[in-house]
């Protein structure tokens, strides 16, 4: 298992590194402190959300409602901050996590307990959550001057040169790594997506695990909703619209199988890095940002096609390779 992924991840890592080098050669400003800082912060957000997206995909599902969850939580915390500007950050984070959890549980209830396909549920909740943002805000925006100071200051505060966002993301991703590789509950997700009936046989509870997974994506979305809004110092109904495509793209590029049972965190992070580099490089090499969407679509298609070619089995291996030609025997 690890060997194969090592090869794939290594190739991807090489591609990402070459990309960086190529762009830097063309426009050295890409590697300036400011630019790198943006890259890291963008990467932190996308990386965290992509890793969260990987969890339902591992179990054979998907969560399209994550950005909508982010928008709602972001707007809710923004409005709270507007009303109570001195609210401590810890409380804000707790509320963000709480709201995210409730929304995630809503998804989980339909998916895990009623057995409705995740694509359908999250397609629906994607609209419902987004609409809820509109209802909550009545279409009004929350602008930079409306936020309380602690709210904005925390995510972009610095520790050892990196933003808090980057540190938080690193922590969460590290925790996810330990969870998926060194804890039973994490390995159970791979089993569940890889062979659901065998998973049942060895006692893995599909319902609980699926609920857990969508609650986790809800929590991650809640937290990122706050971080996103604080980073850009603005909240409106359409924030992070289309972001789910980027999280899925990062997973797919990183080698996560859409049917479940396969995927690694390093792969997903490399996929996220790939996208973040390309998107940030576009304005620097004078390509209009309107190319972003098409490029990400093309890359997803390329990744998915390449994935399928490498997985395609050439049929069962029944013949023994080094067989001595059979002796002829008269019967």
């Amino acid at each position, binding site marked *: 298992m690890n060997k194969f992924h090592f090869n794939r991840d290594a190739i991807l890592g090489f591609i990402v590194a070459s990309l960086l080098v190529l762009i830097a050669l063309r426009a050295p400003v890409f590697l300036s402190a400011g630019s790198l800082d943006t890259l890291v912060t963008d990467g932190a957000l996308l990386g965290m959300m992509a890793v969260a997206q990987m969890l339902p995909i591992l179990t054979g599902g998907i969560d399209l409602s994550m950005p909508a969850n982010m928008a709602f939580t972001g707007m809710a915390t923004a409005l709270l901050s507007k009303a109570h500007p001195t609210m401590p950050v810890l409380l804000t984070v707790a509320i963000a996590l709480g709201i995210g959890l409730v929304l995630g549980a809503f998804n989980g209830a339909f998916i895990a307990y*009623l057995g409705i396909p995740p694509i359908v549920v999250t397609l629906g909740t994607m*609209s419902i959550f987004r609409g809820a943002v509109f209802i909550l805000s009545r279409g009004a925006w929350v602008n930079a001057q409306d936020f309380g100071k602690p709210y904005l200051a925390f995510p972009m505060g610095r520790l050892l040169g990196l933003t808090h966002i980057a540190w938080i993301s690193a922590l969460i991703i590290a925790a996810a790594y330990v969870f998926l590789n060194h804890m039973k509950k994490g390995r159970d997700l791979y089993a569940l997506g890889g062979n659901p009936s065998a998973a049942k046989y060895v006692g893995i509870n599909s319902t609980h695990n699926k609920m857990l997974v969508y609650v986790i994506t809800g929590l991650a979305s809640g937290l990122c909703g706050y971080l996103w809004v604080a980073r850009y110092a603005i909240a409106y109904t359409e924030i992070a619209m289309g972001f789910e495509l980027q999280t899925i793209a990062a997973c797919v590029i990183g080698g996560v199988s859409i049917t479940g049972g396969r995927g690694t965190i390093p792969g997903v992070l490399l996929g996220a890095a790939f996208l973040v580099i390309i998107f940030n490089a576009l304005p620097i090499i004078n390509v209009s940002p309107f190319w972003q969407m098409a490029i990400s679509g093309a890359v997803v298609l390329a990744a998915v096609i390449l994935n399928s070619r490498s997985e395609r089995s050439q049929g069962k291996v029944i013949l023994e390779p080094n067989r001595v030609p059979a002796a002829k025997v008269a019967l």
Partner: protein
Amino acid sequence: MKSGGSRWAFAKRWETILVLILLAICIINSMASPYFLNPHNLFDSTQSFSEKALIVLSMTLVIIGRDIDLSVAANVALCSTAMGWLALHGLSTSSLLVASILVGTVAGMFNGFVITWFKVPAIVVTIGTLSLFRGIAYIVLGDHAFTSYPANFWELGQGYLFGMIPYEFLVFLGFAVIFYVLLHRTIIGRNLFAYGNNPDAALYSGIQVNAYRFWFFTLNGAMCGLAAAFLTSRIGATRPNMALGWDMETIAMVVLGGVSIMGGSGTMLGVLLSVFVMGMLTFGLGLVNIPGIMMTVVVGCLLIGAIASPILVKKFADWKRERVGI
């Protein structure tokens, strides 16, 4: 022809529920607004859903076949972009219509090709093409819009027969009949149900499953092209963010019509009823000035509700049975 005793009976039940819902919506609407029962208004209201409904017809076939197509909205934007660009080069309305359908068809073929040749799940391919198609629209249009269309272009989407019935609606009805026959009375439909239920058994029975899938994605693309022509004509412009949310709405209409998202079952009648249910519902909401974004919330709730209800009903029945000790 009856398709297996109890399933037909259940299907009948679902369509009956839809008819009841439709009646309820119409009654509530007419009570909420005096403008509702006006025939002119009613016919006008069909315009807002006729275009989506065209896509719903072909999307039904895709979903019955155990696939899904999330790229339809982006496909519409792409076709409209193509039309706008061609319009700048002086093409006539009828040529634009043909061009739109062609672009949609090619886009659908692309989906079908990647899905069947490389054997990649439809969900992830159409997530990719949804970005790609709309991305192309953004590249061409950027922040702007195409608005210079030929003088008679508006007739497509805004023209009426007898001054009352929109052309769009008539075209939709015509296609509805064609798709009904296709699904329920032809070999193609029978084979579709077969492989939607069990692709392996269908393959072993001689059905060229991948060929069917390819052509159904192509057809879906063609219908997107057709819908794009009507939509562009009706709103008079091409914007890169047009038809946003149509993927969810079309899938919702299909699922609300009783088609199983897992494939293999569904009726055209149910889908048609669900189109009208959605249409009357959004019309009614529009009459009492509920903003567009709320309508998508309603559709989202309907989507989840439509699938969850039978499951909840069954669970409740099982729970009751257990309590009574049967």
